[in-house]
């Protein structure tokens, strides 16, 4: 996974990236963050203006993406930007986690760690990243 910051606006103070699943449907929402990384201002200042911020994690075998009647389980990559004197902005890229019959070497394989992305991930049918609140001027992922 990679995200790139635009050069038109102020550089964010903090950038949070997370890989998470959440539930939708009739029940109250459940959310679990599988992988999380927070980039502070000093980390972001070391980056070149158009340099992509690359990150990856190994996904767990469960819960798989699910589309039921009362319940839907969604996986997504979420990027949250905290900019000075701006409301925080959130971008979300949904994907589907599907199961495949793969042998496991050890039970610890699915613990979150900075690795290459798992091949069992398929992009979600919904195209493109979703931007949920009002976008702050000059920043883009």
């Amino acid at each position, binding site marked *: 996974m990679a995200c790139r910051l635009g050069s038109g606006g102020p550089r964010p103070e903090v950038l949070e990236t997370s890989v998470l699943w959440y539930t939708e449907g009739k029940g109250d929402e459940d959310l679990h963050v599988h992988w999380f990384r927070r980039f502070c201002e000093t980390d972001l200042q070391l980056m070149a203006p158009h340099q992509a911020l690359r990150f990856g994690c190994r996904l767990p*075998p469960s819960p798989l993406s699910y589309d039921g009647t009362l319940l839907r389980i969604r996986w997504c990559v979420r990027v949250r930007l905290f900019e000075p004197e701006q409301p925080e902005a959130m971008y979300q890229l949904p994907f589907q986690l599907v199961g495949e019959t793969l042998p496991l070497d050890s039970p610890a394989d699915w613990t979150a760690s900075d690795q290459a992305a798992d091949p069992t991930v398929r992009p979600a049918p919904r195209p493109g990243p979703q931007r949920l609140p009002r976008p702050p001027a000059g920043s883009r992922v």
Partner: protein
Amino acid sequence: MRLPRPWTKKRGSRLLGGAFSGAIGEAMFLAGLFLLGVFALALALFQRYGRARFAVPGGLPEGLLVIEMSTSLLGFWIIVVIATALILIGGVGLAYRLLRIGTSDERRNVFASRAAAIGPTGGDITQLPAVPGGRGATESPGLHQTYRLANDGTDLARGVIAVAALALLWNATWFVLLAVVVSGFLHGRPRWVLGFLLIPFAGIGWWALRYFFDALKRSAGVGATIVEINDHPLQPGGCYTLFVRQAGRLKLRRLRVALVCDEQSTYRQGTDLQVDSHRVLEQIIHTERDLTIDPHRPWLQELQFSLPQQAMHSFQSANNAVCWKITVSGDARPWPSFCRSFPVIVHPPVGPPRRHPR
């Protein structure tokens, strides 16, 4: 601008007003509680110790001072307890509210996950995320198959115990009251009102006893149900052998064994907590009509079934669940119908190495 309408029913977790004004209002309320607590505590301390200090040199009579202090002691401690509670509720709530302002949902979730991992079960990495462990299902080996599945606890025996407690307590009370009435007649002071009240009370007692005996017959007639399976947890696409034994003294119009998958959701509706369930799949494994079971000849059956290839795995989170179970249900005669559930766990296609007891 939408004016807040506090008299309307709040539905779910949706907000009636703006999130910002809600946060400010909540923070103001909690800060008010904290300050009120501080004020009440300070006032109580000052009233007690400040007045005592001024009262002693004033030369009041010794007996009067002791009486005044002892009568105000209870009130003082009540105020101290209430003020401390207000300070705690206000202070902790305000701190929690302020922490939420500067932190994203994801970051808080990570903190909570790390805190949960510190506990004694934190090192259990063989557990699949969001899949229930189902250890209880594999703790008991079976006689005919590898595992004997545990009932989900909705046993008739619980209902019988509750009904028995009601019937016995009610009738015991009735007999005590009867003894009071009889002793009144014997001592020449009849209690007519109590005596007349005993008549409707006796009717309730008779109804409770009948209900108890009906429940007892139902429980005794429908004997134990035993379900054993050759492998657990289950995998989508897998084929499994099931052994079912139904005991009791029964005449059944129909006995059915099924594999069932339910979605369960918990949600708040106003101040109520609602649980909704939806049956995603009901796969009939076996149906048999018009059979008779007696205590010496229980119904035994070995059945085969396979799980659908695209089946969703078992899922459990705080408010949502996908539950799989084997159900054994019967339309009994003359007893009412019964249905017993035996939860099973379905793993996603990738799973940890399995433990086999044999």
